[in-house]
């Protein structure tokens, strides 16, 4: 009984899968995914080339124009030092996205190593690694972050490390479940029957089939990592000021929620929009991939 399987094991052809080419599938392109993809393009441009979208400096203070509501001069308003909120959000995109991607990537790499080792390594290895995972589960992400930041100080790198290490056990469990399911399905036996080496089976069948159902989880994880970074900023573990990283913006805006609501509401919306877009695109990508195994 695979009680620890979260997502569905690889399953046979769906009777309602569209027949035909990629073009046919694209014609059925859902609107939600299209909108999400456009938003993501905008976000990636903001991350890679912020000056294109917001030419000013995110650090330039203007003490006489502090706490201004959104206006033509400052389309999203200004903060307590007179800095333009729109510019800060755009310039913070890169850091936040980096934390989101980096932390999830670190988590997945660690989880992959542990999960594959547990799933394929035999009962003893599985038992040891599963117990080790149980131990790591006893350390909430928060505690890990507190320790990592205490040693290395607050920065984008420490955030990535802390969130990555803290969330890895959850993904490791999932990957282990998936690997076990694949191992118990027909792939390995049929591969062996045809005479393939174990390494090839691993590469061609086990890893792809174990990971494919997790694409959606990965993109969900990106959004979650960005949200985690915001939570860490709240506890004083975030990136050092005056960084425009979204978690830091969210934390700084908290005091002003009743007097300058735009400082707290708008960065929060930015985080939600990015998480939503990444997850939507991820879910669509997953559907495409699963349809492609037909």
């Amino acid at each position, binding site marked *: 009984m695979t009680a620890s399987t979260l997502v569905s094991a690889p399953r046979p052809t769906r009777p309602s899968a569209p027949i035909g080419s990629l073009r046919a599938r694209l014609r059925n392109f859902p609107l939600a995914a299209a909108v999400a993809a456009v938003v993501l393009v905008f976000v990636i441009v903001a991350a890679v080339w912020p000056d294109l979208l917001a030419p000013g400096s995110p650090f330039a203070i203007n003490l006489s124009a502090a706490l201004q509501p959104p206006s033509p001069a400052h389309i999203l308003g200004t903060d307590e030092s007179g800095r333009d909120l729109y510019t800060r959000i755009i310039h913070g995109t890169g850091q936040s996205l980096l934390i989101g991607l980096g932390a999830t990537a670190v988590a997945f790499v660690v989880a992959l190593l542990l999960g594959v080792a547990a799933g394929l390594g035999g009962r003893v290895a599985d038992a040891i690694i599963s117990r080790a995972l149980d131990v790591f589960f006893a350390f*909430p992400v928060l505690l890990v972050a507190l320790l990592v930041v205490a040693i290395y100080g607050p920065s984008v790198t420490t955030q990535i490390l802390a969130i990555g290490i803290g969330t890895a056990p959850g993904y490791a469990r999932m990957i282990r479940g998936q690997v076990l399911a694949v191992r118990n399905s027909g792939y390995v036996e049929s591969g062996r029957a045809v005479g393939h080496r174990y390494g090839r089976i691993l590469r061609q069948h086990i890893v792809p089939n174990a990971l494919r159902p997790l694409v959606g989880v990965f993109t969900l994880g990106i959004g979650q990592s960005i949200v985690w970074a915001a939570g860490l900023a709240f506890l004083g573990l975030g990136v050092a000021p005056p960084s425009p990283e979204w978690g830091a913006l*969210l934390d700084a805006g908290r005091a002003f929620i*009743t007097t300058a609501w735009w400082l707290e509401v708008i960065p929060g919306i930015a985080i939600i929009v990015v998480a939503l877009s990444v997850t939507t695109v991820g879910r669509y990508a997953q559907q495409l991939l699963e349809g492609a195994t037909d």
Partner: protein
Amino acid sequence: MTTATIDGLERPERSATRVLFIVRRIVPRMLSGVLVLFAAASLTFLAQALLPGDRATLLLNQQTGQTIQRTAQELAPINAEFGFNAPLIVQYGRFIGGLLTGNLGTSYQLHKPVAEIIGEQFMPTLTLTVTALLLAWVLTIVWTLLTARRRRLVSTVGTAAETIAAGLPQYWLGVVLLVVFAIGLKWFPVIGGTSVIGLVLPAFTLAIPLAGFMGQATRTEFEKQYDQPFVTSARMRGMGDVQIRLRHVLRHAVLPGITLSGWALGSLFSGAVIAESVFARPGLGTVLLSAVNSRDLPVVTGIVILIALLYVVANIIVDIAYVIVDPRLRTS
């Protein structure tokens, strides 16, 4: 799974086997659980002992609100009291020895037994966590039932709501709820405390993102099961849609959620730290933060052991729940 086919005697035999099945799974879990507790405690000890900076200086500085270097003379009494100068292996030995006798030690900062400190603050956090989990379940089930496999627009809205909920930063949500419902509308008290009504906003703060997360897994499973042949045949037999959803599909759909619940507990604890801070609730969150800030090893270890214990227990409960709920374990 053996089943007797004698009418009227089916149930007892089936449930006896099931109970044995459950027990056989629990006992090894409990044993390995104890191992997990010790491993977690040891890891905490290592982490705390290896942090940079001198622990005695930290304690003395915090007593006076200063951040300076101290002379060995000033630190001597503290080092003597807590044995900080002994070699690491000796300190570890003392530490494990204390745990084996069930003694969690005394807080460096508060001079009180750790068990007392944790005991006082444990219930509010547990109440909040469990309430949040239950609330998340209610939200998930209601939302999934209402919006899965309906008209395209409803389904899309349903999915979007879940994804947005999962993407809400917890303290952002908490502050917004506080400002709107407590300070603005005055429906709830600003200072949560330990009252029941003060539990509502913090519980929602934690439950909504979790419901978004669990909802996605539940919805996927729900939709998959809804497309299965047995549902079609039930509908052909004349069963109404509501009946189908509640009686047949839901049982399957909640399985991934049950598995998630075990993991959710840890995530909820981190969230509880944040919720307690925003809503001025007492609990282990503030204790943990303050203990980590003062490198109060006994308290941090105590909390880690507690969380590990909760995990072991929660996973056992999840396993049992799985066996009870999973319809595939019944005869069809």
